[in-house]
Each structure stands twice: as structure tokens, then as C-alpha cells.
């Protein structure tokens, strides 16, 4: 797992959208208790929108934090584990494409393509992990456009 983002940078991140208080956050499970499924976190909105554009989940942002990996379109419970691993790898690569090519994200310091893809693949394969958990992984590995300005 790559190193965590500096708390200071996250704390000083300028919200582009209205203040978080105006938008209740979803009660999504996440091991990092400081991580919040919030529209003010670019990793959350980018993960949500990328999965939407890739036909994986069609829901408004707020409830999407609690959507589990097995509820995404790619997660075929009838298939073999080999098949699911292969499917997760394809989707992980396309998410990486989406973040870097379309959203313009860059890797965090200390993260490289191998680490980022491994983290994405592992998260996608964990059936009970939520979209918020996936966004937390994305937040740790990618630095998005507005985050550079904070």
C-alpha cells in the first residue's frame, strides 16, 4: 500500500463545491477513519464519475459511497476466480486510464503504475469493499487537478 497523503495537504484543500456541511456524507465503511466520502474530495468524485462513465454503477453521488464491489457491473459472481481477477485487471487499467488521461491525475509521490494498478485490482476484487473504500485507495495513489492548487 502506498504511503498516505499528508494530512496537512488534505486539511488545507480548498473546496470547489459548497461546504461539506451542506452535503451529508454517506455512511460508507472505511478503515481510515479520517477518510470521508465527500463531494469535496476529488478522489471520491472522480471514482464515482469514472465508474458511472464505465457503466459500472448508476446512482447519485451520496449513496454511491456504500455501493459494494460485487454490486458493480463487472463483478460476475457466477464466474471463476481466474475470470474475475482478469476482469478486475481490465477495469483497474481503464480506471487508471480515466484518472490520468481524462481527469489529468498524476501518481502520488512514491506510487508508480505497478503499485497503483495492484491497489486498484485488489480493491476491485474485494466483494464487500465499498466505493468509498476504493476512493480511499485512489486518494492514496493519485493526485488530481485541484489538489495541485491547494
Amino acid at each position, binding site marked *: 500500500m502506498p504511503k498516505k497523503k499528508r494530512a496537512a495537504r488534505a486539511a488545507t484543500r480548498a473546496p*470547489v463545491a459548497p461546504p461539506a456541511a451542506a*452535503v451529508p456524507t454517506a*455512511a460508507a*465503511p*472505511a*478503515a481510515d477513519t479520517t477518510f470521508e466520502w465527500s*463531494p469535496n474530495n*476529488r478522489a471520491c*468524485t*472522480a471514482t464515482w*464519475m469514472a465508474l458511472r*462513465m*464505465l*457503466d459500472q454503477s*448508476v*446512482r*447519485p*453521488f451520496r449513496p454511491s459511497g*456504500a*455501493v*459494494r464491489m460485487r*454490486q458493480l*457491473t*463487472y463483478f*460476475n*459472481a*457466477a*464466474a*471463476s*476466480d*481466474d*475470470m474475475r*481477477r*482478469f476482469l478486475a*485487471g*481490465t477495469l483497474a*487499467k*481503464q480506471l487508471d*486510464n*480515466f484518472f490520468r*488521461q*481524462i*481527469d*489529468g491525475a498524476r501518481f502520488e509521490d512514491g506510487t*508508480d*503504475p*505497478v503499485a497503483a494498478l*495492484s491497489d486498484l*485490482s485488489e480493491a476491485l*476484487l*474485494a*466483494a*464487500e*469493499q*465499498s466505493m468509498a*473504500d476504493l476512493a*480511499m485507495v485512489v486518494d492514496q495513489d493519485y493526485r*488530481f*487537478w*485541484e489538489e495541485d492548487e491547494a
Partner: protein
Amino acid sequence: MRAIGAVLAAALVLGQAGSVAAQEDSSGAALVERVGSLNPGPDVVRRVLEDPETFNHLLDRLAGSGGAGWRLLQDLHVRFKTFEAADADTRGLGFAYGFDKVVQRQAFDTAGTAYTGLDFHLQSAGNVAFRSAINPRDFLNTGATLALQRSRGGTTATTEAERRTLGQLEQKLALYETEAEIRASPEMRQYLEIVAPHLGTQLALELGASAKLESDQKFEQKQYAYAAQLGLDLKAWNRSSALARWNLFDWPAAILRYLAGTDPRFTPRGSNIPTIRLALARVDPSENDGREALGVTSSYTRFNLEAAYRSLVAHVGDGDFFLESDLRWYHELGAPSVIRTAGLDEFTYFAAALTSTQGPFVSYSAGRLPLDAASDQVYELGWKLDF
């Protein structure tokens, strides 16, 4: 026994309380208070012990979420379930497990959308019934795979101005409370106008070599398979592309999405073109009763094919309905006539399900996997709960 039952009953209560319980105080004191008030009798204990969700809930708590919990349990995915024998009169508890751990990974080409890399991973998967006689899919496989992975395409790069706009649009869209508001919003229209031209077709290939032990759950029957394998995954992420529009496999689902009002127009998707995995294996049937009884114990060559498909068929209210299917075919090349006559040269397994994120599901599976004693048809109609 009473103490174990009390803990399990507490786990069930916590599970039934669902996500609310997850946020509440689940400290030792609170747990003891809940258990004390239950005072479970033998019937309650038995019901709790027979319910696979009791064990699933305990496992989820042990494994934790997003990094906490026991590392082994995070890599080893176990789900308890109820098995039903072919005669449908006998039921019993068991579990499905899967373990897949990438031990080593190296990338050679990561420029743009390209990726070429090498993985070495260990894996094990199967179904285990506590009473092996009622296991309808008695097939475990354990082994190691070295795989070369390659992915090309999928997106093209946006401009810096477009990226800035997309970031702002994403955060505005995240504030809408309903799907109808999002679809009708000018922000969504603008977002699609920018992003759609940058979505393309992705081709992912996997070329691998594997060594696996295939067995029944008692390891009384086992064989070794050394395989060369090829995986093909083609995804046309842009719905306007010819590949997406002519994805005939998705036409039935596209019709259902249109009829359900999920899609405003008939819109087949290229994101769910079936994925295929092929393998050519040399199988050493070291302890295979069926073949031994026929006096054929020499190694043989087997061709495997697996095709998987899953697609959204309706988004109704807050729930999604999916159609998913999986076909696995094992065929022995040049099988002796005695093997063909005994029906041991070919194994076909097919599973299909209509599932919902809201709970209800219908599933059907038929056929058998290698080492299965008989071909079964299993229908399931049920309700899955999210704890």
C-alpha cells in the same frame, strides 16, 4: 456450547441490525448486554448455527474493511452458504473460498494507455461442504500462475482546460440528490460532450502458464494440470462505437433496459462484451477413480474454455438488476473410446442468474465440473441481505 451459542446469537443480532449496528457501539460491554438479554435456548442456537450469514458476519468482522483485521482473511475470501443435495431432501452448511495473491508484479511498458506487465500469483478456490456428500460442485483447484498482461487503448487524453472543467462539473454533479436530476442537468450534458469523444476501445490480453492441483474436497480424487492459457477482454467503452452498437450479446439486456426506462433509447453497451479465457492443459490424473476404473491412467491433453457475461438490465428505484452468466467447457483431446463412452472426456458447466442489489435473485446452474460425480441442475430463488 451455551456460551458459543450466545456469541453467535449476538453476531446474528448485530448482523440483522445491519449498517446501523456497524455505527453503534459494538464494544465488549455492549455485546455482553445484548447477549445477556437474549438468553438463547437450544433452538435459537441451532438456528443460528445453521445460518451461513452468522458465520459470514463473523468473518467480515474478523477481516475488517479497508486494511484493518487479519491479513490472511483479507486475501482469503470465504463465504459460508447452504448446500442442497441433488435429491433436495438434504441440506447442510459449507463454504466457498477463494485465495488469490500476487506475489510478484513487474511492468515493462506503462506509456499512455499501454500496459505490459508480468504477474506471478498463487491461487486456490473451491466449495467445501461440511458433509461432502451434499456438495454439488465438488471441485477445488490450487496452484500458481505466471501471466503476461497487456492492455491497449480505452481513452485518449483531454486538454488541461477540459480537465479543469471536468473537475468542476464532477463536483457540481455530486451534489444532485436524484438520478433524474443528474440526467436532466446541463452539467451532465456538458460532461458527456467533453468525455465521450475521449472514451475508446480497450483490448486486454493475458498470456499465462499455470500449474494446478485439481481435487475433490476430501482429496480422495486429484489430478495435476499444467496449462498454457490465454485471456481476451475487449471493451468498447464508447457507446457510440460500432463495437458497442453491434454487441449482439447485450441486445436482450438493452431491450430490457429500454423497456424498464433505464435507457431512454435502445442502447447496447460495449462495456459488457463477453470475456473469454482459453487454456490448453496437460493433465496427470494421479488419483482419478473414474479413469482408474476404466484402466486409463495416462496423462492427457485437455482444452478449457470459459466465457463470462454480465450486464445491467434495469435500474429501478434504488436497485440494479443484473443478468449474469458463465460457461465453462472442458474437453479432452483425442480421448480413448472407453473414456468417451463413459462420458469422462467432456465436462460442461453453465450458470446464469438474475440478481438484484436490493435482495431478490434467481439463479440456475447445470452440468458438472471435472471430478464432479454427476451432472446436476440447481435452481435457486432467494433473497440476499446486505448486513
